[in-house]
């Protein structure tokens, strides 16, 4: 591959799976997370992989990422958090925290890194099926819808040099999904036609496709990978 691939939120879950897949595809992965465990992930990847431990909501943290990934070929904005509550019970702190991590950090990092990326590079942002609406997620759903908007705008602004897409997974078997009460999770899985959560590796395959030359005519799109939940009753 012609340059490094930056993967945020790579210490665990979907980000870790993406880092592994992109490394297997030949990228030198720059694995970013505020959790120092990301160093172990970079060690697992071997080759030219390296870790950057930083909080992406901090300008200084994002600067470390830009410095670590000169002429990047791919950027995967994957880091994210949830702070769920019905809107009537949601606090302003919970609203702001989700907007700042899921959206502001991704937007600012993209603005800072994109000018330095190689021609024919690709950006993928991790939205969520929740962008189509979810109970108890005014903050999260708004952040993930906004990432779709960012994707559509940047696809037009950065073309033809870079392609920009988004992925919207349904439930994925990671710590984030496991943090839900089991009863709620089981009910949600019950509405998935494929009858199960996604494995992180399945989402990683989709991201790897979108950053690869195989997706060379795809930009400005959001691909929903939800096991069919977004069309089921």
């Amino acid at each position, binding site marked *: 591959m012609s340059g490094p691939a930056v993967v945020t939120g790579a210490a665990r879950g979907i980000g870790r799976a993406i880092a592994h897949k992109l490394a297997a595809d030949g990228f030198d992965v720059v694995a970013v997370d505020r959790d120092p465990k990301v160093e172990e992930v970079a060690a697992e990847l071997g080759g030219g992989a390296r870790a950057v431990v930083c909080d992406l909501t901090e300008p200084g943290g994002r600067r470390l990422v830009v410095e670590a990934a000169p002429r990047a070929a791919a950027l995967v904005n994957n880091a994210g958090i949830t702070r769920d509550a019905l*809107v*009537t019970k949601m606090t*302003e702190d919970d609203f702001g925290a989700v907007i700042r991590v899921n959206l502001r950090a991704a937007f600012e990092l993209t603005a800072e890194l994109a000018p330095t990326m190689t021609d024919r590079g690709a950006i993928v942002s991790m939205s969520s099926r929740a962008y189509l*609406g979810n109970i108890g997620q005014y903050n999260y759903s708004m952040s993930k*819808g*906004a990432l*779709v908007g960012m994707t*559509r705008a*940047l696809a037009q602004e950065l073309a033809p040099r870079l392609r920009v897409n988004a992925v919207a997974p349904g439930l994925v078997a990671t710590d984030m999904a496991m943090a839900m009460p089991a009863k709620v999770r089981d009910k949600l899985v019950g509405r998935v036609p494929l009858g199960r959560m996604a494995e992180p590796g399945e989402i990683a395959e989709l991201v790897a496709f979108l950053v690869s030359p195989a997706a060379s005519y795809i930009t400005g799109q959001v691909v929903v990978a939800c096991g069919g939940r977004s069309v089921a009753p």
Partner: protein
Amino acid sequence: MTARAHVHAPPGCGWLVPALRDAGLGSGEPEDGLIFAQRSEGLTSFDDVEAEMTESFRLTRRAASAGAPALYVVCIADLLGQRGSLAAMLANGLLSAARSMALEGRRDGRIANALGHDPDPRPEEVASWALLLLEGRGVTGGFVAVGAGHLAKVVP
């Protein structure tokens, strides 16, 4: 008919308030009903986007707590990302908010909808659809495009 609502009409949406008044909407508090229009002018940094999103959250929480309906008014060009990332993030974030609010309100009959318009809308047409969507008439989580900017595009 919800005759009163609080209207959030930031820069770029000055045409909306008189059009809604002419269509018969009285001024009110979010607890009566909420019409939240997307800011489309003067967005210069993410701070501006976050400020509007936070305001949407505060007003929506007040409306929802009182069981009042909410309508989010966005520009279709911004849903499609045709006028820059800042407006695109705001427009699409508000559309997702409308859908989430419709889901949360479903059990107790509280409605939320979204309305999209072109960059040069006919205010009276937007206003008359806005009143219908605020009232609901069986529509919740709906998106109505007033104009033609959505034709053959991926919106919503």
